[in-house]
């Protein structure tokens, strides 16, 4: 049985294909203005990687911000449940998940089977989001991929008091004018992000093991700052961006089995 999990986020779209609980292939594409096309593009890429065709997919679950507009999805499930399920698949011991996506940030607690027990989300402001890092990288004229590494070179943190993207940007501009090194500014920016997401984590309570998912998990600077505050080293998968899509594929498998079971009992 082959199933698909499609996670359409605000900045990127991911598809994971799964056969009998094993990941066959995955893809990550940037979200365009059209969520439906993004979903198709991501799925086509994943199908190419696995060398199978669209007709082989028996069930599809869509998740993420754009989940309601994935045309070929059989069902849509919130990204909160999918992230918990996906994190549980990758790390069965995980109980606390911090998902830092492109446009929002979530703190999730789950149980031993990956069911959500407590969650809080910040989707009101850009603090702790990929977009925030994007803006800062742009102001400092450094590639997004490098800002984590650069920040580690800092000997001290520059003071960035605001976690608001608009205000932090103007603070960063004035720090640049003063000649503060980029590494120290970035370290300060990461500190501001970590402070904000730590407050969110405290709302749900932190329990071992702890995992960070979403694109920001690739930013070693933020990860270190969050680890310092939590007092625990986070687990991070090889590809933290696809955790939600993995969860969606797992839901798809479960729902597909249920649907088949129903069909069978009907025909008897």
């Amino acid at each position, binding site marked *: 049985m082959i199933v698909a999990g499609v996670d359409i986020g605000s900045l990127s779209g991911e598809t994971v294909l799964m056969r009998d609980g094993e990941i066959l292939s995955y893809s990550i594409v940037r979200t365009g203005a059209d969520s439906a096309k993004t979903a198709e593009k991501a799925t086509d890429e994943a199908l190419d990687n696995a060398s199978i065709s669209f007709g082989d997919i028996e069930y599809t679950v869509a998740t993420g911000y754009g989940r309601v507009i994935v045309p070929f999805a059989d069902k849509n*499930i*919130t990204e*909160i*449940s999918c992230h918990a399920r996906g994190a549980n698949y990758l790390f069965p011991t995980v109980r606390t998940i911090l998902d830092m996506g492109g446009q929002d940030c979530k703190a999730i607690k789950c149980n031993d089977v990956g*069911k*959500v*027990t*407590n*969650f*809080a*989300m*910040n*989707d*009101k*402001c850009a603090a702790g989001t990929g977009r925030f890092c994007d803006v800062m990288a742009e102001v400092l004229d450094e590639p997004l991929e490098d800002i984590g590494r650069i920040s580690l070179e800092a000997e001290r943190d520059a003071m960035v008091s605001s976690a608001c993207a608009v205000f932090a940007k103007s603070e960063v501009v004035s720090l640049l004018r003063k000649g503060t090194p980029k590494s120290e500014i970035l370290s300060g920016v990461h500190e501001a992000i970590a402070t904000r997401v730590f*407050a969110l984590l405290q*709302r*749900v309570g932190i329990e071992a093991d702890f995992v960070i998912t979403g694109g920001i998990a690739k930013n070693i600077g933020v990860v270190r700052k969050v680890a310092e505050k939590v007092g625990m080293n986070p687990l991070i998968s090889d590809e933290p961006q696809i955790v939600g899509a993995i969860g969606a594929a797992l839901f798809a498998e479960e729902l597909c089995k249920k649907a088949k079971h129903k069909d069978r009992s009907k025909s008897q």
Partner: protein
Amino acid sequence: MIVNYGYTDGSGDYYIVIDTDKCDGCGKCVDACPQNVLELAEDDYGDIVVRVRDEVKSKVGYVCLGFNPGCSKNEVNCRSVCEHDVISHTW
């Protein structure tokens, strides 16, 4: 599942906390709310439970009157009608 609807801003914590495991989906709180904050809907695990309406989520602190400063003075409110202590507020 405990769901925290709301946010922290410069003036404080504004969260409506809903424990969906305790909720039986009776809907009395939906009717009791003077601000039309709540609704019943199916969650990801197939249970009908109460939740904060999407339109209200990012302005909870403005739409909901809050329990201590607001609705606790009303004879009927979302917390008084609930037999299972599903809903709580942080302000």
